[in-house]
C-alpha cells in the first residue's frame, strides 16, 4: 500500500494540530479556566492520527480520553471541541460532558467512555448494528493499556470474534495507567498477544510511526468490511506528560523519559519527510503557523462562548419531556 505525499502531509499536520491543541487546553487548565483535570495524548499523536485517518466519515469511532485530535480528524470542529472542554454552551455536549465525554454524532463519533471498560461492549453493539444492517461501516474502538486489563476486554473481544463483527480494536499502549506501569500490571508483554485467545489477528505496531499505524488499521478495516471479523492492534507509544494536569509525574525514571523523547512521533516523522524532500523549513513554518492560527481561533471561540444557564443542567435527562 502506498501512502501519497498529500496524505503524509495531512498526517504531519494533524499530529502538530493534536499537540498544539492539547498544549493549549493544558495551559487553559493551569490558568484555572477548565473545570477538573485535562488528559493529554502528547507523545501519542502518531497512534491517534494514524488510526483515525484510516477511517472514512461514515465509520464509527470510540476515542479515548486522550488524543483529542481523533475527534477533529473524525470531523469535530476544534472550536466547539475546546468549548466543550471549557464547559461552555457552544460545546458538543453543551458543557455537560467535558473533555472525557465528548461525542459528535454528526461525525459518527460515539463518544469517549470515561468508565473505560464500557468502551468494549458499546463498540460490540455498534458493530452489531453495522453487521445486521450490512451498512459497510466499521467501528474503531480505542483504549489504553490500563483498560486492556479490565474484564469487559475479554467479554467483548470474544463476542466480537464469535459474531465476526466489523470492529477494529486499537490499544494505545502508552505504558502507564496513571502511575502504574504496564510492565508491572500485565502478565504478558504485549496486549496484542491476547488476540490468539479470541482467534483473531493481533498486531504489535510502533505507535510512534504514523504510517505504520495507518497501514495496519487500514488493513484491519478492509478485513472487517470483507466479513473477516475483528482485529486487535497494539500501538506501542508513550505518554510524555503526566496522567492529567494534576500529575507532576515524579514516578518515571529520567532515562525512560529521555529515551522516549528521542522517539517523539512528530520529530521523527518530520525528519523522515525532510529526508524524502516532502518537508522543508519553509513548509514546516507554514504548517506550524496555520495550525497555531487554527488553535488560537479555537481557543478564542471557546473563551468567548457563553456559560450555559445553570438550569440547563437538568435538561436532556430523558429523550422526551412528555413522559417526565
Amino acid at each position, binding site marked *: 500500500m502506498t501512502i501519497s505525499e498529500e496524505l503524509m502531509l495531512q498526517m504531519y499536520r494533524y499530529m502538530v494540530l493534536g499537540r498544539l491543541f492539547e498544549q493549549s487546553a493544558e495551559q487553559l487548565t493551569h490558568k484555572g479556566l477548565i473545570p477538573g483535570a485535562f488528559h493529554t495524548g502528547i507523545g501519542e499523536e502518531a497512534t491517534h492520527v494514524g488510526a483515525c485517518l484510516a477511517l472514512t466519515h461514515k465509520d*464509527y469511532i470510540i476515542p479515548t480520553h486522550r488524543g483529542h485530535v481523533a475527534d477533529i480528524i473524525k470531523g469535530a470542529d476544534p472550536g466547539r471541541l475546546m468549548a466543550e472542554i471549557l464547559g461552555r454552551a457552544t460545546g*458538543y*455536549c*453543551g458543557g*455537560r*460532558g467535558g473533555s472525557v*465525554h465528548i*461525542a*459528535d*454524532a*454528526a461525525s459518527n463519533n*460515539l*463518544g469517549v*467512555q470515561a*468508565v473505560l*471498560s*464500557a468502551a*468494549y*461492549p*458499546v*463498540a*460490540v*453493539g*455498534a*458493530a*452489531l*448494528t*453495522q453487521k*445486521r*444492517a450490512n451498512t459497510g461501516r466499521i*467501528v474503531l474502538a480505542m483504549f489504553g493499556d490500563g483498560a486492556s486489563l479490565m*474484564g*469487559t476486554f475479554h*467479554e*467483548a473481544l*470474544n*463476542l466480537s470474534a464469535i459474531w465476526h463483527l466489523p470492529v477494529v480494536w486499537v490499544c494505545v499502549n502508552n505504558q502507564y495507567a496513571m502511575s502504574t506501569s504496564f510492565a508491572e500490571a500485565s502478565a504478558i508483554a504485549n496486549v496484542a498477544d491476547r488476540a490468539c485467545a479470541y482467534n483473531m489477528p493481533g498486531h504489535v505496531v510502533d505507535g510512534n510511526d504514523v504510517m505504520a499505524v495507518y497501514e495496519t488499521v487500514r488493513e484491519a478495516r478492509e478485513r472487517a468490511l470483507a466479513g473477516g471479523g475483528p482485529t486487535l492492534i497494539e500501538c506501542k507509544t508513550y505518554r510524555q506528560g503526566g496522567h492529567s494536569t494534576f500529575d507532576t509525574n515524579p514516578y518515571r525514571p529520567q532515562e525512560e523519559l529521555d529515551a522516549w523523547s528521542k522517539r517523539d512521533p512528530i520529530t521523527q516523522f518530520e525528519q523522515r519527510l525532510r529526508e524524502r524532500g516532502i518537508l522543508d523549513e519553509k513548509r514546516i513554518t507554514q504548517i506550524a503557523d496555520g495550525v497555531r492560527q487554527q488553535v488560537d481561533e479555537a481557543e478564542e471561540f471557546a473563551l468567548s462562548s457563553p456559560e450555559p444557564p445553570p438550569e440547563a443542567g437538568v*435538561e*436532556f*435527562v*430523558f*429523550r*422526551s419531556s412528555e*413522559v*417526565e
Partner: protein
Amino acid sequence: MTTREITFRDALNEALQEEMGREEGVFIIGQDIYGGPGGYQGAFKVTKGLAKDFRDRLLDTPMIEQTIVGAAVGAAMTGSRPVAEIMFEDFITLAMDLLVNTAAKTHYMTAGQYCVPIVVRAACGAVGVGPQHSQTWTSWFMHIPGLYVVLPSTPYDAKGLLKTAIRDDNPVLFLEHKKLYNVKGRVPEEEYEIPFGEARVLCPGDDVTVVAIGYMAGLATQVAGTLRDQGLSVEVIDPRTLAPLDLETIFQSVRKTHKVVVVAEDCKTAGPTAEIAALVSEACFEYLDAPVGRVGARDAPIAHNVGMSEYILPDAADIHEAVQRVIAW
C-alpha cells in the same frame, strides 16, 4: 375490545413477537434466549417460539451481563432497539456500570445527540432459589436519573408496558416477578400500549390507600377483599412504573382517604416505600390522619429455607396488619 385469558409469560411473549414484527431494529440479546434446537428459549421461557419467525433476532451470548447491556447500548446508539434479558435481577449488579453510567447518562452527556432505546428485562422476586437469585431491587434504579423503571403486576400491564418500553427512546429497566409468570389474566386481542407514569387503581376505596408495587399489588388486592368483608373500604393503587411515578393518582387518593400504606418486596430500609412515603408526607401532610405505613422485606438476604424466606418477605398478613395499624391510629 375482545379479550382472552393468557399468562403473564405469554403476554410478554406476545409483546416481543409483535414489536419484532413491527420494527426491524428490535432484537433480543441475552443468555439462552434461543439456545438452539431443544434449547432453553429464555430461562423463564419468555422467548419461547419466537425463533419461528425471528431466529436471526434472538442473539444468544455467553455469560457476560456487562457486555449484554453494553452491546445493547451501542446497538441502540446506532439505530437498533434492543431488548436485553438478564436472567435474574441479582445478576444485574454485573451490568450496573453499563446501565447506570452509560445507558442512563448517554442522552444527557451528549446533549441529546444520542439516545439509548433499550429495554433491560430481568426476573425479580423470591421463589426459593436462595440469596443470590431472589432479590427485588427497585429503589437503586429509581435513584438513577435517565432510567425508567417498570414493574407490571398483571398480564394486561405486562404486555402493554413492554410494548411501550420497546417503543420508548429511553433506557427502561423492566422487572418481571418470577411468581407472576404463570398467573393468568385477560388481555385484549387488539393492539394496545400503556403509557408510563399512569398508575392503576386496582380497587377503589374510601378508608385507606394501599400503594403496592409489582407482585405486592396482587397481595394487596386480596387483602382489600378480605377487609371489605369486614366493612373496611381499601383503595389499592399499583404505580406500574416507579420512574416515572404517577404521584397525582397517589396524592388524590391520600387526600380522599387520609391514610396510606406503601408496600414493596424490596428490603424496607431505603426501599421504594421510603421514597413514596417521603413524597406523600411532603405533599399531603395536612391530609394525613396517621403516619404513612410501610411494608417491605426484613433487612436480610432472602434465605433458601422456606420458613426463613417467608419470615423475611412481606406477605398478605403483613399488609393486613399494616392497614389495621393505620386505621387504628
